[in-house]
C-alpha cells in the first residue's frame, strides 16, 4: 500500500500539472492569441540581453535534450547500444553540469538585468514575478541534483527510479512507489517542475510553444486575402441577445 501523500504527489499531481498545461494552452490559443508573445525587452536594453539571452535559451535547449535522453530512453536501450552505466554516468554528469551551468549563468545575467535596469524592471509583470523564482529554483535544484548527488555524492542512478516513474505516467500506469526512495533534491526538482509546467500557459513562457520552425520551409513573401466576412460589416451595437 502506497503512502497517500506519495500517491497524491507522484500519482495525481503530474496529471493535474499536465492537464493544466494542455488545457491552459488550448484556452490561451482560443481566447488570448493577442497576448501570446515573448514580450521582448530588447528595445529597452540590448548589451546585457545579448549575453544573457542566448546563453540561457541555448543552455535550456541542451538541458531539455538531456532530459529527453536521460528520461525517455530506457536503460536497457543504451546498454544494448554498448554504453555501459559508467560511461553513461560520466556523459550525463559532464553534459548536464555544463548545460545547467550555462543556463544558470544566462538566467543570472537576465535576472540581474531585470532588477537593475530601471526600464526593464518597470516592465516586469505579475506573472514574471511568479515565474522567475520558480524557474530559478527548478534550475538550481536540478543543478544541485546533478552536481551533488550525481557528482560529489558518487552517483545516483535516476534511470532506475525517476525515469521509469515518468515513462509509466505516460503509459497511464502510474507507479508512485518508485519515487518513494528518491533523494530529496530530485523530488523537489520534479515537484517544482510540475508547478512550472502549470504556469507556462499563463505566463510569457508560452512563447516556447510558438518556436517558428516553419520559417525554414516557407517562401519569403506572404500574401493573404482579406477575410470576406470582415469587409464593411458594422459592429453590432451593444444590446441583449436572447
Amino acid at each position, binding site marked *: 500500500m502506497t503512502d497517500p501523500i506519495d500517491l497524491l504527489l507522484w500519482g495525481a499531481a503530474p496529471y493535474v500539472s499536465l492537464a493544466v498545461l494542455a488545457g491552459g494552452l488550448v484556452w490561451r490559443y482560443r481566447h488570448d492569441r493577442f497576448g501570446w508573445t515573448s514580450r521582448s525587452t530588447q*528595445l529597452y536594453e540590448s548589451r546585457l540581453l545579448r549575453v544573457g539571452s542566448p546563453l540561457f535559451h541555448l543552455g535550456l535547449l541542451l538541458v531539455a535534450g538531456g532530459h529527453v535522453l536521460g528520461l525517455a530512453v530506457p536503460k536497457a536501450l543504451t546498454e544494448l547500444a554498448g554504453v555501459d552505466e559508467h560511461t553513461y554516468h560520466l556523459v550525463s554528469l559532464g553534459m548536464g553540469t555544463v548545460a545547467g551551468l550555462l543556463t544558470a549563468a544566462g538566467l543570472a545575467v537576465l535576472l540581474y538585468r531585470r532588477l537593475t535596469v530601471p526600464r526593464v524592471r518597470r516592465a516586469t509583470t505579475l506573472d514574471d514575478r511568479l515565474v522567475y523564482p520558480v524557474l530559478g529554483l527548478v534550475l538550481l535544484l536540478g543543478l544541485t541534483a546533478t552536481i551533488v548527488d550525481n557528482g560529489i555524492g558518487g552517483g545516483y542512478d535516476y534511470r532506475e527510479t525517476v525515469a521509469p516513474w515518468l515513462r509509466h505516467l505516460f503509459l497511464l500506469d502510474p507507479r508512485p512507489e518508485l519515487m518513494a526512495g528518491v533523494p530529496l533534491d530530485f523530488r523537489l526538482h520534479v515537484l517544482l517542475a510540475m508547478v512550472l509546467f502549470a504556469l507556462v500557459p499563463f505566463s510569457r513562457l508560452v512563447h516556447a510553444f510558438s518556436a*517558428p520552425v516553419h520559417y525554414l520551409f516557407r517562401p519569403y513573401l*506572404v500574401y493573404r486575402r482579406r477575410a470576406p466576412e470582415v469587409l464593411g*460589416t458594422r459592429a453590432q451595437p*451593444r444590446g441583449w*441577445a436572447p
Partner: protein
Amino acid sequence: MRVMAQIAMVMNLDKCIGCHTCSVTCKQTWTNRSGVEYAWFNNVETRPGQGYPRRYEDQERWRGGWELDRRGRLRPRGGGRLRRLAGIFANPDLPGIDDYYEPWTYDYRTLTEAPLGEEPPVARPVSALTGAPADVSWGPNWDDDLGGAPGNEDLDPMAVRMRERVGRGIAYEFERSFMFYLPRICEHCLNPSCVASCPSGAMYKRVEDGIVLVDQDGCRGWRMCVSGCPYKKVYFNHRTGKAEKCTFCYPRIEAGEPTICSETCVGRLRYLGVLLYDADRVAEAASVPEEKDLYPAQLDLFLDPGDPGVAAAAERSGIGREWIEAARRSPVRDLIVRHRVALPLHPEYRTMPMVWYVPPLSPVVEAVAESGHDGEDAGNLFGAIDALRIPVDYLAELFTAGDPAPVEAALRRLAAMRSHMRSVNLGEDPDPEVPAAAGMDAAQVRDLYRLLALAKYEERYVIPTAGVGTAHDLESIATSCSLDTDGGPGMGGPGGAPLKPGATDLLTWSGDRPEGLFPPRRGGEGRSAR
C-alpha cells in the same frame, strides 16, 4: 503574367512646408497609446539630416532590406532564414529605444495639486518608460529645420555617401545651404523585406490592394521585421510585445477614402491611386545587378491598364472592373509612368517601394533667385539644374541610388512647367521650345500643371472601394433609407444599423425587461415581466 493591384502614394516635395500635420493626425488616429509613444507611422524629417530613427539609412549598421548573394539571388541583408533563427534570442540589428528617443510625458498633477506658493507650479517631464524625472535631450524632429547646419556633416548617411561617390560634399555654410522636408510613411513595398524577415509569418501583403499589415494575433514578438525594414517603419510595441506599422489607413481605403495623412495634408501634396503590376516579375526586377537599374526595372513592372490584354489578364486574376477603371484614372500612375516626375525612395534597398516622391525644385529656384536672376526663366533654371550639382547629387542618393540623370530629367520637367505656365499666365506667347527641351509637349505640361498645381481633391485621390458589390453593407445609410431598418425610427425604434433580432438597444432602453432576458421557469410558462 500575374496582374496584381497596389494602392500607391506620391508626395510632391516642392509643396511640403514641414508643418507635421500628417504626423499629428496619424498619431491621433493610430498610435496615441502607451507602448507606441515613440512610434511615428508618419514622420517628417528635414533633409539633409539624420532622419528618424537616427541614421536609419546606414544599412551597414542596421542591415535592412535585401542584398544579392554570390549567385546573384535575393537574400535579406540581415541574413537568410537560418541566420535569422540563430539570432532570435537577441536580434543583433535591432535599434534601441535611444536610437529613437525615450518617450516622455509631463507631471501634470503638480499643476493642480501643488500647494499655494510664491512660484507658479511647473509640470516636469517624466519618462514614460520608468516614471522617473526625465532629462529630455533628444526627441522626434529634434533637428527639425537644421538641414544644412554646420556640425551635421557626418550625421546624414546619404550626405556622407554622396561625398564618397562624387568627391564633393554638401557645403555646410549658411549662405550655400539647402534643405527640404521628407514626409515618410511605410512604403508598402512590392518586395517587402519585413514580411520576408518575420519568422511567424504574421506579416503579409494583402492580395487585393497590396497593403502590408501585421496580424496582431499571429505576431509573437520576435522583432525581426523591425530590423528587416530598411526604412525602419515597423515599430515594436513595448507594452504588448507585438510589432505595429503604418496600415495605409486600410479601413478608410476600403471605404474609398484617402489615408488620414493625405486627407489632412494642408499642402495637398499627396496623391493616392491604383497601379497594376506584374507580380511574377517582381523578384526578377528586384535582383538586377546594378543598383542604378533598379528604378527603371521597377518602372518596367507597372502595366498599362489601357491595354486590353492587361485589362483581360487583370480580370482573370480577380481584379474588379472598378479597380481597372481606377487604375486608368490613377494620378499616381500619371506622375510615375506618364510624366516621369515621381521617383522611388531608396530603390537600392531592393524592396520595390511604393510611396514615390516628386523631387523638390525649390532648392534650385532659390539658388537662382538669390543670385539675382529670374528664378522662373527656363534657361536660367535648366542651366542651374546642370550647374548646381549638389542638390541634384544629394537627391540622387535618396531617389535613384546615385544616378543623377532621372532626377535631372524630373527637375527639368518641373522647371519647364513653371516657365511655360508663367508665360501663359502673363499672356505671353509660350515658347514651344521650353517643354520640348524637357521632352514634353504643351498639352502634357498643362496636364502636369493641373495635377500638381491645381490638385483637385477628386483628382488627387482616385480610390476604388474595397468591394462595390458589398457597398450596400458598407454604408447602409448611403444606399438605403435609414428609416427602413427593422425597428427603425418609423417603427418606433432606434435608427442606424439594425440590431440582432430580439436584442435591445441600451441607448433607448425604457427600463422594461425584454422578453427572453431570463430563461423560462421550469415546469411553468415563461415569466414575462412586462
